């Protein structure tokens, strides 16, 4: 009996949290289009999330391209299809692996950062203080952060993709004696607009999800230092799960409109 009650309670709280997050997102959109706009804070957050994540994203992307090429090379070489290497690598990185891996990295770095930052602000009652002082904390803290991630993530993904392809080209140049010019020519032959557009649109939603879950968890942080840790942790976990759900839907939609 107690088990079923706990299950009911848990599912209740699960749906309540999703509902609350939806309402939180609705509030974000309402606040987004109402004055005053916090441009300065937005730029600061963009710098904070974009530029500061750049190195991490580049390193991850580079290793991703390197390893991916190294791993798939033998299989294609068995088939005598090394010539397909550039098109296969580029399509899988640009379409799927690049956006998802980089979004997950950003969820770890940015999502948890937002969760911890806002959580500690909530715990130290800075948010309450802002409310008292007449500043809209939601607008200043939440809207700017969500917007910044949403804007920055597509750029980070594009950079990450490019670096991954460079990594792949290096391996192919070392292992297969393929010149960089030929390799990139082949990559751009294989890639089309229908590969890049859905992938980039997808990253906008990824960015929004990271920002939304991070800020929600931080903004609604429970009291105490445990709450801060929990907020930052659950921000990453929820974001990762949400990323895959969004990816799943995005692939379906792009499949219909772009006929993979």
């Amino acid at each position: 009996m107690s088990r079923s009650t706990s299950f009911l309670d848990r599912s209740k709280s699960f749906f309540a949290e999703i509902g609350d997050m939806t309402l939180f997102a609705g509030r974000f959109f309402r606040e987004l289009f109402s004055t005053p706009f916090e441009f300065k804070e937005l730029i600061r957050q963009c710098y904070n999330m974009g530029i500061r994540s750049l190195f991490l994203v580049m390193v991850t992307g580079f290793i991703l391209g390197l390893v991916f090429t190294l791993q798939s090379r033998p299989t294609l070489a068995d088939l005598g299809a090394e010539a397909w290497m550039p098109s296969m690598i580029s399509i899988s990185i640009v379409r799927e692996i690049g956006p998802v891996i980089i979004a997950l990295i950003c969820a770890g770095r940015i999502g948890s950062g937002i969760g911890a930052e806002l959580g500690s602000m909530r715990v130290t009652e800075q948010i309450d203080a802002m409310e008292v002082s007449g500043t809209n904390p939601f607008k200043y803290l939440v809207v700017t952060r969500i917007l910044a991630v949403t804007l920055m993530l597509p750029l980070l993904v594009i950079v990450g993709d490019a670096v991954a392809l460079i990594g792949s080209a290096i391996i192919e140049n070392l292992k297969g004696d393929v010149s960089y010019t030929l390799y990139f020519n082949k990559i751009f032959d294989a890639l089309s607009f229908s590969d890049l557009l859905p992938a980039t649109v997808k990253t906008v939603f990824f960015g929004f999800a990271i920002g939304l879950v991070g800020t929600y968890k931080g903004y609604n942080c429970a009291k105490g230092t445990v709450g801060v840790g929990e907020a930052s942790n659950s921000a990453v976990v929820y974001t990762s799960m949400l990323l895959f759900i969004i990816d799943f839907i995005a692939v379906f939609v792009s499949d219909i409109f772009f006929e993979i």
Partner: protein
Amino acid sequence: MAKSTSQKIKVGIFVVVGTILLIGALYSIGKRQHIFSKTTQVYAVFGNVNGLQIGNNVRYSGINVGTVSKIEMTEVGKITIQMSVEEKTASFIKKDAIASIGSDGLVGSMVVNIIPGKNKQAVRIATGDTIQSYSKIGADDMLSTLNTTNENAALLTSDLLKITNQILEGKGTLGALINDTILAQDIRQIMIELRKTSEGTGLAVSRINRIISKINYDESAAAVILSDTVTANQIRNVFENLEKSSEDINEVTKNLNEYLTEIKSGKGALNYITQDETFVKNVDSTMLQIKEASEKLNQNMEALKHNFFFRGYFRKLERQERRAAKAK
């Protein structure tokens, strides 16, 4: 501003259910591609689809026009495939189009190729139509054929090996031809003789040619017969008449034969006349008797002239004769 927990739960359920519905809808849409363009369903029946799968492309003259939407075995050895063809291009596909299954590249997936028919007046396809199909030879069939070819080739080469060995050993005519030096000399001699003969023949032929050219061909009987159609007709008539005559003669001789046999067999008067000897004797004696009788009659007539009764009559006749002579 703050929402109650139940409201939040409702919103949460709404979002989750909405997301699930969205995914379901997207899945069903993704399953049936070309959902946004109107399609025409066309069917084709194959004996072997060579690994064709639902969703494989359908090509018309090399353009992708739709996808395979259903593959179904209707009877043993009869597989019906349903193709969803875009309405736009379906109008160009006529009812006499032929579908065949091919592969897309070396290791690519299978495709259905629709080839336009030759009849330009044919009606365009409509939903539910079944078009003709043409099964290309599958790889397995090809390999099995190749296998038999291989076996045959092996037998052939082993036979060839035997033959070449025998030739090398100088067995048989061919071996002798190749290896026997005396035979080669003989053949060379034969060739020389043959050349001489052919030269002689050439001379003879040219001589005959000269002779033939001297003959005045146009006026000879042979030429007339060969070239003049009128004469030919006449000759034909002559032959026809001859044929008729010979038939008639045949008939006549047949009749004569019958006649003669009848005569010989002893029927009729002629036979009696010709064959009976007693008859001849009778006639002979009768003739003698008639002669005697006529002499006697002459005597009787003389006697009559002198008779009393008839003397007057005869004197009268004499007188008349005398008068006639005087008148002259």
